């Protein structure tokens, strides 16, 4: 099946009654869908994660990032505020920033030296008045009339989000109170430190990875690291939170103290019956040595913000992930591993060791990086077939059960609403 829709071929119809529980495979394959996503999602009324406030410490600091496929510069200006605008010269469209990060006084395009301020305004044009009365711009040319598009910026506990649409809901409403509380839970009032950055290149449509991050059903099935080595012996409970529009979610698990107390009472008997299912043991369990970081018993919290942001707490491994489309069949997953300024040496070491669980080589997440490619390859020639997302019913409501696809259905509900599909 060709991924490129033939010129003029109309987009197929996705039946309204399929809601988010039947998803046709063509939405992962068609160029025209991607174009629409760039326009209606990434440049529409959504909030897109761009960077950490910790990466913009001083006036003049900038980072060059992407919102969808659009290159964007995020800066801190001398007024202390954070600004974001397209990484595109007003003049002929060249990239303004040619480094990933740095500190500058302005952005002067290398092509013809048109200069832009830290807020993205055009402030200077080389040879504007010509030389010796010859050449130069027309007298009525107004520098305010051109310039890279600016983004609205929001800061949530040091996470910097941007939106191309001025009319986007305030970020608090966009996330909903419950999701916002779960960001506060991990980051509020803390000074983040970047421990490392990695870009993982996945051979699949970006939405296949987003589905995976929202899929609490697959975790114990696909990822066999914990079960093989019988590492998770504590009783766990957990649940799912889905934002009102469906597109943001939290999946979490926590130690079930009541069940643990019950177990303790019965140890004498149960000890007799404990038989290891496998002989495999990790020789160095310091890999998973964790420390008490939060006021609750939550050991794992995966939080997503529509369309493509993930905040992860896996024990003390804290990271953000940014999902970026690169055509229909490829995506970049940008990981930023996070610590905090007041970490002790031992705590920092624990975070670095726990990070063996994540990323392209992670004991737990290496499978997640591959599964999207398996789906891409498996669905070639099956564009008009659809995925079945009916585990746990058809609604998008959260609950205290993780054997559900509710949060994936939620993603599709918000996706369809914003795309008009």
């Amino acid at each position, binding site marked *: 099946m060709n991924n490129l829709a033939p010129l003029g071929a109309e987009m197929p119809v996705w039946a309204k009654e399929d809601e988010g529980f039947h998803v046709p495979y063509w939405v992962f394959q068609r160029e025209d869908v991607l174009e629409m996503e760039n326009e209606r999602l990434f440049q529409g009324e959504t909030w897109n994660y761009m960077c950490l406030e910790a990466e913009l410490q001083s006036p003049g600091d900038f980072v060059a990032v992407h919102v969808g496929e659009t290159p964007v510069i995020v800066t801190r200006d001398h007024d202390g505020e954070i600004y974001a605008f397209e990484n595109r010269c007003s003049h002929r469209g060249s990239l303004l920033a040619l480094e990933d990060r740095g500190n500058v006084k302005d952005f002067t395009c290398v092509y013809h030296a048109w200069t832009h301020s830290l807020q993205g305004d055009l402030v200077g044009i080389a040879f504007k008045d010509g030389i010796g009365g010859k050449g130069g711009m027309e007298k009525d040319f107004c520098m305010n009339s051109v310039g890279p598009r600016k983004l609205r910026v929001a800061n949530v506990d040091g996470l910097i989000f941007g939106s191309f649409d001025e009319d986007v809901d305030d970020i608090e409403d966009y996330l909903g109170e419950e999701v916002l509380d779960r960001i506060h839970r991990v980051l509020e009032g803390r000074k983040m430190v970047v421990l490392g950055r*990695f*870009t993982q290149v996945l*051979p699949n449509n970006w939405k296949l990875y987003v589905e995976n991050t929202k899929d609490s059903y697959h975790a114990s099935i696909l*990822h066999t690291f914990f079960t093989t080595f019988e590492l998770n012996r504590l009783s766990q409970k957990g649940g799912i939170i889905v934002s009102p529009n469906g597109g943001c979610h939290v999946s979490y698990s926590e130690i079930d103290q009541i069940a643990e107390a019950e177990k303790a009472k019965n140890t004498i008997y149960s000890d007799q019956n404990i038989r290891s299912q496998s002989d495999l043991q*990790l020789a*160095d369990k310091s890999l998973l040595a964790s420390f008490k970081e939060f006021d609750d018993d939550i050991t794992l919290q995966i939080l997503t913000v529509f369309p493509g942001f993930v905040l992860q707490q896996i024990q003390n491994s804290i990271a953000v992930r940014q999902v970026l489309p690169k055509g229909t069949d490829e995506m970049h997953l940008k990981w930023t591993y996070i610590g905090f300024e007041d970490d002790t040496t031992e705590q920092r070491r624990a975070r670095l060791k726990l990070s063996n669980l994540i990323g392209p080589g992670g004991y737990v997440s290496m499978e997640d990086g591959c599964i999207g490619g398996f789906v891409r390859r498996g669905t070639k020639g099956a564009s008009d077939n659809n995925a079945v997302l009916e585990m746990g019913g058809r609604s998008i409501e959260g609950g205290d059960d993780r054997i559900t696809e509710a949060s994936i259905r939620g993603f599709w509900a918000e996706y369809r609403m914003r795309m008009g599909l």
Partner: protein
Amino acid sequence: MNIHVRQAEVSALISAAQARYVREIDDGDCTAWPNFFVDDCFYTITSADNYAQNLEAGLVWLDSKDMLRDRILSLLEANVYERHSYRHMIGQPFVGELEGDEVDSETSFMVARITREGPTDLFATGRYIDRYRIVGDEAKIVSRTVVLDSNQIDTLLGFPL
């Protein structure tokens, strides 16, 4: 012994160890990989950007020989991935001056990856930044920092580099 002769001997030991090292990964099953290291070793994989900025986190971050063994055990027994193999090409080691029985060394590498349904692809390039200890007539790795040239890493980094 003449210091120059000793230096040449150490370089030869490192080259020999590295040749065996890549053979174990590319043509063996990696189970002997930890044996190239001392017990209290350190092994990490990072990118040139992170390395230049002194950012500590790694894609893999192991600080004992047991953790290296666990890594291979997990890859062979627990993790799920499609069949694939590597082919390492390594450059000549750039060996520093011997300090007692330890020495710094740097070696460039290129790794191709061969996957089940795919062609042979260039998977990674970079350099090993190593500290070796000479134990008898063997060079053992005390610390290996694998610095990848690009910050973009293909979706699966299973076996060691």
